[in-house]
């Protein structure tokens, strides 16, 4: 909620050199980054291991972005910046990407990072990373000389630059991990030798991860911090208590609006909602389109019109969450204005139900709603609101709780549901995190976060497939815009709100991670004011 403060600090930093010449210097001097200190990050995520090339997700992504460098990195916009690759260019047909690596980069064991390592790491990710679409069109990763990497693709693959950034394709040491063992269960994934700003010295599952500054990091002077400790807490409440008692200095990915408001009011913490543009987390209501009542699009539209997004974002989420209206978040470069929004309109809802043969004089509509456990504010509260809201439209809803995640996942992925609340991430590019929910080919029983709505529109498939290989950004955006318009008209999903992820940090923390990947980006420029 403090983007302006951040921007000012950034601007000051940029101008610091010029200003030191002036007498104003002492006042600005405070903004000069200071070396040293330990940053304790509170977390409720439980990583399985730390090798993000074979394990996606936030839990592994946050520490892995510190331990491993990637070829590219991103700032606060969706524009790639050099990282391990100092330059890159596409061939005229956009099917070959050539990258030049920086000189002198080394792994944490001192061995140089070469193009061999990079090509091998990308190949590992292609073969093992759970997001199989992100590198699918790649035919070969080549290493013609130690500083050059060539990626050959069967078709233009515009998401490739984003895929080469943090959280998705870490650069691994081939000489350590290419040891004949299955990379997914290699015990070295627990304390891997990395290539990034921090080396991992301890990983106690369920307790903490300790990351120490790597003095040989290829960006001179970075990182500023001596140490990052990621402490795992049982839940957000204890994480926030730790922040208040001074045990931790930063709590990213906090989505409890009650706790965020409390910390904001205390006046001792800074709060920002920046840093979640690429994750793109959406809280939505999904329909089982094969359920006899819900197979009628008018019923789905009626349900959407009976739900007031403003009530959810303002009353349930204390004004901290943003309404969601389409498959991508507002900050996504593919966000489109021209979609069916389904604003709150109870009369329209009733009219649609009557037209479909329900309501007065017609059949009684009774449905069941499920929700993801362990996310009360975003999921259970909204499910209960949906029940109350739909009662006003004459629809009877029963709420079914799931005791834990596997129970819910089992129900939804075996299509044993009518309506369900769900949370799904965009992961930066529609090819990675959006297509999976809508493509006919991704109706796969038993797989959670596939097309469990069993929605199929060949027109949408065609648009999305075309968009996946369209190198021109404007044309690509237009294709997705058309697809989103059709999807919202067909309404397999009613989008409710963006998950209000916030990063809370003490006043001492400078340059909090606010890039598009946020805490899943390298924290080499974070520093502590002494």
């Amino acid at each position, binding site marked *: 909620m403090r983007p302006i403060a951040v921007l000012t600090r950034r601007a000051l930093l940029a101008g610091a050199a010029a200003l030191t010449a002036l007498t104003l210097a002492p006042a600005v001097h405070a903004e000069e980054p200071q070396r040293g200190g330990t940053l304790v990050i509170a977390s409720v995520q439980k990583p399985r291991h730390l090798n993000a090339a074979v394990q996606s997700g936030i839990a592994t992504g946050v520490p892995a972005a510190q331990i491993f460098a990637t070829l590219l990195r991103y700032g606060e916009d969706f524009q790639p910046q050099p990282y391990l690759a100092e330059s890159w260019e596409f061939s005229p047909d956009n099917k070959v990407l050539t990258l030049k690596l920086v000189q002198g980069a080394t792994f944490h064991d001192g061995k140089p990072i070469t193009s061999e390592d990079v090509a091998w790491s990308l190949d590992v990710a292609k073969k093992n990373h759970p997001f199989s679409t992100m590198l699918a069109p790649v035919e070969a990763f080549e290493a013609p000389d130690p500083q050059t990497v060539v990626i050959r693709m069967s078709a233009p693959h515009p998401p490739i630059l984003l895929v080469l950034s943090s959280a998705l394709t870490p650069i691994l040491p081939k000489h350590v991990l290419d040891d004949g063992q299955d990379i997914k269960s290699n015990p070295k*994934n627990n304390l891997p030798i990395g290539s990034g700003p921090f080396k991992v010295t301890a990983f106690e599952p369920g307790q903490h991860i300790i990351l120490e500054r790597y003095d040989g990091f290829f960006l001179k002077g970075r990182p500023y911090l001596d140490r990052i400790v990621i402490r795992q807490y049982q839940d957000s409440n204890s994480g926030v208590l730790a922040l208040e008692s001074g045990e931790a200095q930063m709590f990213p990915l906090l989505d409890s609006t009650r706790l965020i408001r409390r910390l904001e009011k205390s006046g001792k913490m800074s709060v920002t909602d920046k840093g979640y543009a690429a994750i793109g987390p959406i809280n939505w209501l999904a329909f089982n389109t094969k359920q006899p009542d819900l197979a009628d699009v008018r019923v789905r539209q009626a349900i959407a019109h009976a739900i007031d997004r403003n009530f959810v974002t303002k009353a349930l989420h204390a004004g901290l969450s943003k309404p969601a209206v389409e498959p991508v978040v507002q900050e996504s470069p593919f966000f489109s204005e021209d979609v069916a929004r389904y604003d709150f309109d109870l009369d329209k809802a009733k009219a649609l139900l009557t037209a479909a043969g329900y309501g007065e004089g017609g059949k009684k509509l009774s449905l069941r709603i499920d929700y993801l456990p362990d996310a009360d504010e975003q999921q259970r509260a909204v499910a209960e609101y949906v029940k109350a809201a739909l009662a006003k439209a004459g629809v009877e809803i029963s709420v079914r709780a799931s005791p834990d995640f*596997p129970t819910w996942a089992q129900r939804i992925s075996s299509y044993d549901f009518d309506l369900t609340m769900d949370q799904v991430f965009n992961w930066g590019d529609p090819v990675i995190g959006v297509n999976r929910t809508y493509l006919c080919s991704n109706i796969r029983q038993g797989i959670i976060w596939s097309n469990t709505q069993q929605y199929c529109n060949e027109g949408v498939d065609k648009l999305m497939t075309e968009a996946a290989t369209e190198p021109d950004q404007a044309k690509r955006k237009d294709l997705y815009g058309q697809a989103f318009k059709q999807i919202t008209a067909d309404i397999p999903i009613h989008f409710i709100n963006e998950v209000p992820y916030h990063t809370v940090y003490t006043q001492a923390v400078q340059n909090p991670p606010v890039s598009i990947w946020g805490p899943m980006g390298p924290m080499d420029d974070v520093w502590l004011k002494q």
Partner: protein
Amino acid sequence: MMRRILRQLLYAVGLILAVLVLNFLLIQLAPGDPAQVIAGEMGGASPEVMAAIRQQYGLDKPVLTQLALYLGRALQGDLGMSYFYNRPVVELILSRLGPTLLLVAAALAFAVLAGTRLGLMAAKNPRGIASGVVTVLSLVGYSAPVFWTGLMLVILFGAKIPLFPIAGMIDVVKVGGPLTRALDIAHHLVLPALTLGLVYLAQYSRLTRASMLEVLGADYIRTARAKGVSERQVLGRHAFRNALLPVVTVAGMQFGAIISGAVLVETVFSWPGLGTLAFQAILARDYPTVLGILFFSTLIVIIANLLTDFVSRLLDPRLAGGR
């Protein structure tokens, strides 16, 4: 004596086997499987990845085959790999066993010491104020759910009067020698041990009180008093030692219950013990870890029972000869 120990050992092996088989079958009844949890952690996965995970852990085999394979390995001392944490179950459990034993031992010590002391105070003057206070306190302590007591202590000592740390076992940021570390752990131990101990403190004080009152009415106490033994000696030496027997028996029997209480307390205080591990493992459908923890806790309870037997004999020589 030897035969008795042998019989108990045989009994223990049978018990452990029964616990493993029963729980293996029980956990299969829970909906969802580890592959789904792992996919959930990954933010979604393709069918190929799911199939690979299931194959990697043998989840594609029939349940009874899985059980046979598991028992076969367990008998050779191999408890398998954790599905979720990707490391050997034995290694995971051993790293958590220490903290749990520490917590349980501290809680038990606190409960027994303070409980008997309070019970003694109450027994000295059964109609006095002290007795009334002890009775009320024990009733409250006994009936309050352990997680509620924990949360209240967290709010009081974590947020209002920040005297004690409220989560974890060590301050990872703090550096220092073994003494600093031990003090740090002791500091972290206070609240969880207090929470867990309070429930049992109530029981022990009530038990001590009742048992003391009974013993104090016995003939030999009257004899002791008649021959002029000081009241202190009467209470401490003659009465208390005899009144302690039921307390020891109950403390030993309750060891198992305390371990299950520890699951809740550990969860409230993020204490890195077997309880939090068990909780996470159940949520993750991490069968090998759950079974491994049950195996170890059964073992602990059996050992505790044997120890109780031994201590009872020390306290009351009559037990050693009899039976």
